[in-house]
């Protein structure tokens, strides 16, 4: 009696597994087919468009690409340097801004007010406008002689713009840590500052690591904005080349260089936000 029951159950099981396999095969087939249709369709649309031969010549010219690439790459190193410098500055300054804003020490009130205004203003002005204003406004003040280099001024503008955003990300992270953690830290005898440094901040920052990285992907791209005040970074170099040779291929080269950095960063963000990272 029990044996027939076991056989019946295993038949059910085989049936279910077969159904599951059929479903999986069907899903894969649909995915493959729709990919071919969409990607093939788009490719056909571009390749059969009346302007395609012209576009291929002006945007995707291999000769122009190899000619311009070394110069664009040189320009891109400036992007990378500015990016790394600004990122380091933003990480520190934004943390200080966030800590000032969440503190409740009465003596820090004027500073708190100031940081609130700073965060509102820096986030409220388009980054491109900030680069322009600082790039041309600060030298005009003639406080420092000779005037700081456009690269430095551009980096300062980016730092101001991104510090506002990133401080809000930090603040959200700190506030997301349960109050009981702070209580427990005080209960073992830590001071408020120690509780913040050893217990609240490590948890809060870990939690907002994906949005922090996301902001840095955006920053990496926005470095191109400093080109409007002069520095010859990748986009500017490509633009100059394009102006001289009436060919846009160097801009594609610049775009590929940006992608080479931002895509891996985006993948890292994805990983951190995955099911494992989301549990905590």
């Amino acid at each position, binding site marked *: 009696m029990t044996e027939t029951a076991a056989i019946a159950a295993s038949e059910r099981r085989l049936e279910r597994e077969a159904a599951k396999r059929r479903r999986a095969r069907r899903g894969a087939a649909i995915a493959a087919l729709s990919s071919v249709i969409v990607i093939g369709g788009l490719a056909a649309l571009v390749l059969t468009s009346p302007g395609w031969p012209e576009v291929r010549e002006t945007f995707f010219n291999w000769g122009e690409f190899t000619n311009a690439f070394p110069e664009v790459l040189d320009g891109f190193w400036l992007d990378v340097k500015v990016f790394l410098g600004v990122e380091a500055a933003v990480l520190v300054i934004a943390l200080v801004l966030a800590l000032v804003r969440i503190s409740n020490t009465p003596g820090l009130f004027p500073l708190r007010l100031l940081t609130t205004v700073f965060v509102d203003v820096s986030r409220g002005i388009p980054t491109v406008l900030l680069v322009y204003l600082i790039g041309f406004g600060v030298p005009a003040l003639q406080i420092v002689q000779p005037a700081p280099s456009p690269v430095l001024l551009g980096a300062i503008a980016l730092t101001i713009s991104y510090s506002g955003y990133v401080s809000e990300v930090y603040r959200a992270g700190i506030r997301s840590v349960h109050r*009981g*953690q702070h*209580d*427990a*830290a*005080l*209960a*073992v*005898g*830590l*001071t408020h500052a*120690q509780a913040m440094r*050893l*217990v609240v901040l*490590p*948890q809060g920052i*870990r939690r907002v690591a994906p949005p922090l990285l996301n902001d840095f992907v955006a920053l990496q791209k926005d470095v191109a904005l400093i080109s409007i005040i002069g520095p010859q970074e990748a986009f500017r170099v490509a633009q100059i080349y394009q102006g001289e040779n009436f060919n846009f291929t160097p801009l594609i080269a610049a775009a590929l260089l940006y992608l080479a950095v931002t895509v891996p960063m985006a993948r890292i963000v994805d990983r951190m936000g995955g099911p494992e990272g989301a*549990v*905590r």
Partner: protein
Amino acid sequence: MSAPVLELRGVTKAFGEREVLRGIDLTVAEHEAVALIGASGSGKSTLLRCVDLLEEIDDGDVLLDGEVITDPAVEAVAVRRRLGYVFQAYNLFPHMGALQNVMIGERYAHGAKKADAEERGRALLARFGLAGREDGRPDNLSGGEQQRVAIARAFAGAPRALLLDEVTSALDPELVGEVLAAVRDLKAEGMTMVIATHEMGFAREVADQVAFLHAGRILELGPPAQVLEHPQRDETRRFLGRLLEAGRI
């Protein structure tokens, strides 16, 4: 006779309009365990939080070893270093292993050397049956293990008194016993304790005194046999009756 370890005199505490404590008088002598019983919202947790200066009281005083600790001039951090607190929801630090959780107070609050703190931390974990779990993150420990780590953490600073806030309420029933055993062990060693609890059997066994809290006041105070078996007040009888119905006694 030496001063009691803890003494509360007319302690009141309100959150906005809501008066949670309305004049609490309580004395806890050295080596004594006092169980606080009462319905949820009767003020048990608030009382413990006020003693550990996690909340500021409105009126009255709390004395630790004869010294007023609720004076605004008293350094709260120094007071907390002389007390241990165990939370209902454990409140372990999730980004640290069990050993680090136990060591952090000694290292940073009491300024112990790392090697010394680590040695004592390992010994404490072993004492509470957690040898081999030193590196375990709180997420990977059972509720009972987490609460035992929390007890070890509170005990690590060699406190004058331990404040236990419903330490078994968040646990699955089969894990309650191991945590109560840890508390029993500390009691046997002579630890002074204030224990907010819903476990009447445990209160009867471990406590020298039971205090029944109702609406922010201690309505009844005495040895467990008296308060739990022969309650004088209607409120106490009703409270115990409800627990009996719920099968908690």
